[in-house]
């Protein structure tokens, strides 16, 4: 699950990570009130959307007066912000964070994630603050400092010092950075994050080290033990169909094509998308009904696929193992009866009770097209959407 910058900063602050003073709002009048309350003469107005690159897209602006805060907040709230992570369609901004201006001395990059190669958390820091880490990794990999935390011990003081000295920090700032890094690690573990990225991490003129920005991705599998974090979910940032799918324990991801797919198992679902493309058509979605698919889930899945207007044909590909194909067939038939199905539905059933399932489909009189074999199924569906 993704959260907004202001939410990530709330989590970090609760673990003792220094962040600039700030408050979130959804209208220009409140923005002015917040800025007035924060005091000072410079404020940053930051669009809150679930995507990086907000600054370059025009979603982060500096204000030097309360009038300017009002004007900028008015411009940014409601704007359609396009960044390299939002895709060309962009995202509408509903909220802005009003933050006190900072006396920036230097900017760094800092992040923690689980390194899949070692199965341990990796902590990274770089002097190239504000830059995309992928760019730094490609152009100047030596500029990225890395330490791996021992899962049983956590990030140690000496490891954090290695990073702090590596960043060129001196004097009191070293210990401040060490404390921040260890608190960040505690927040990462404590909140069950899969990614914590602070870009930039800032050293100010007073020698303080603060998280100027914050990005946090949380582990969906661990949300059951973090009710406070689960409550931070912002449904306006998510695809309506994906939300509907998650209610029924279905994994659904909308794509650009016109062949709707329903498959059991994530790997086979991806492979089905691939073979549709190889056959010359384009998948409209990824949809995994799961290993333990029930008739109801199959019905919901079928409805979901058909609710996409782009869908011109459907391919159902089930390899029945524990899931019985006759049960899948019944789910499809029930769904087809309750919905108006105006597109061809190609069905490939293999494995447990496949013949019985295919027979049920043929006898249903619903015009379902049974096909044997994965390759033939893809060719058939490509043929019906092509012609």
């Amino acid at each position, binding site marked *: 699950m993704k959260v907004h910058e202001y939410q990530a900063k709330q989590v970090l602050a609760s673990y003792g990570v220094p962040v600039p003073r700030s408050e979130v709002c959804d209208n220009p009048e409140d923005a002015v009130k917040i800025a007035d309350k924060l005091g000072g003469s410079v404020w940053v107005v930051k669009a809150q959307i679930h995507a990086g690159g907000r600054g370059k897209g025009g979603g982060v602006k500096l204000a030097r007066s309360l009038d300017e805060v009002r004007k900028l907040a008015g411009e940014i709230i409601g704007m359609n912000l396009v960044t390299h*992570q939002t895709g060309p369609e962009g995202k509408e901004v509903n909220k802005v964070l009003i933050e006190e201006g900072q006396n920036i001395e230097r900017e760094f990059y800092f992040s923690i994630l*689980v390194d*899949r*190669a070692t*199965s*341990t*958390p990796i902590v990274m820091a770089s002097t190239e603050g504000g830059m995309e*880490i*992928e760019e730094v*990794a490609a152009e100047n990999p030596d500029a990225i400092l890395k330490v791996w935390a*021992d*899962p*049983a011990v956590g990030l140690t003081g000496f490891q954090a010092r290695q990073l702090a000295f590596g960043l060129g920090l001196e004097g009191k700032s070293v210990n401040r950075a060490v404390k921040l890094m260890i608190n960040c690690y505690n927040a990462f*573990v404590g909140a*069950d994050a*899969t990614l914590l990225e602070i870009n930039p991490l800032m050293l100010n003129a007073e020698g303080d080290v603060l998280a100027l920005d914050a990005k946090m991705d949380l*582990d*969906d*599998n*661990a949300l*059951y*033990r973090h009710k406070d974090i689960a409550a931070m979910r912002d449904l306006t940032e998510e695809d309506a169909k994906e939300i509907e799918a998650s209610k029924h324990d279905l*994994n659904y*991801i909308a*794509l650009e094509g016109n062949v709707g797919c329903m*498959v*059991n*198992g*994530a*790997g*086979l*679902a*991806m*492979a*089905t*998308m*691939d*073979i*549709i*493309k*190889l056959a010359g058509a*384009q*998948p409209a979605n*990824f949809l*995994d009904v799961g*290993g333990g698919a029930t008739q109801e889930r199959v019905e919901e899945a079928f409805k979901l696929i058909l609710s996409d207007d782009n869908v011109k044909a459907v391919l159902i590909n089930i*390899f*029945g*193992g*524990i899931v019985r194909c006759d049960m899948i067939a019944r789910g499809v038939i029930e769904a087809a009866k309750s919905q108006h199905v105006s597109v061809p539905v190609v069905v490939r059933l*293999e*494995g*447990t009770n496949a013949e019985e399932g295919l027979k049920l489909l043929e006898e249903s009189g619903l015009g379902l097209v049974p096909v044997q*074999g*994965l*390759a033939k199924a*893809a060719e058939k569906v490509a043929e019906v959407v092509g012609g």
Partner: protein
Amino acid sequence: MSILVNKDSRIVVQGITGSQGTFHASQCLAYGTQVVAGVTPGKGGQTAVDGQVDVFNTVKEAVTKTGANVSLIFVPPPFAADAIMEAADSQIPLIICITEGIPALDMVKAYDYVQRKGVRLVGPNCPGVITPGEAKIGIMPGHIHMPGRVGVVSRSGTLTYEAVGQLTAQGIGQSTCVGIGGDPVIGSNFTDILKLFNEDPDTDGVIMIGEIGGTAEDVAAEWVRDNMKKPVVGFIAGQTAPKGKRMGHAGAIISGGQGTAADKMKIMEACGIHVVKSPADMGAKMKETLGL
């Protein structure tokens, strides 16, 4: 003629009294697998699967009393990492965890623990391991398999069944099929399993089924180039997957431009793996490669 498990494997099922545990333990027994014990804390002294299996409170007790040497775990996600560590602490040499949805940081700890205990973990979020005709230790449908000399290793469940189905349809049997799991943190990776197949005198070739996300396939491909004495046929799922979206499996995500199917296929091909673009060609390619 197998790796990891065979007819002599003695299984303890952790979480045997849950609905999944009971159902699959009965399926494993029906296949002829020796399920010798079950563990559910608080239900020690009872029996499970219609009186066929004795239930113990702890894995240690189950091992002492029955000589179990493989653990099969169906414990729900919040408690699964603890179950893995309990099995490791009892020095069970092979732990197979089916559970899907374990928090990643729980697995980081459990993985570290298992390494320090010197035992092997397969999974989590996997279908398990089967040596056809000898032992089915997992949730895969036994009847699609056929004893033979081709190994299968995969991050996916149903896509493994697809590969097995194609092999069996071609008349090619399998030595052992290993589902390593779709999570970012898993106990055994491709390289670990390929090493075992390489040393198994009764495996002639291996189908390796990867997917987007991470770099495990790349590392395995380089290992194959330098060490593998047997042909490997490869497929990568997710050639059409968009970036930044998790495709069902927790580990199937292209992040920061890394872990794309195209990159993996390129590296695998360059390392001498017979890569197929279509998932429908896995079995035929293996047949062709082995000259059958």
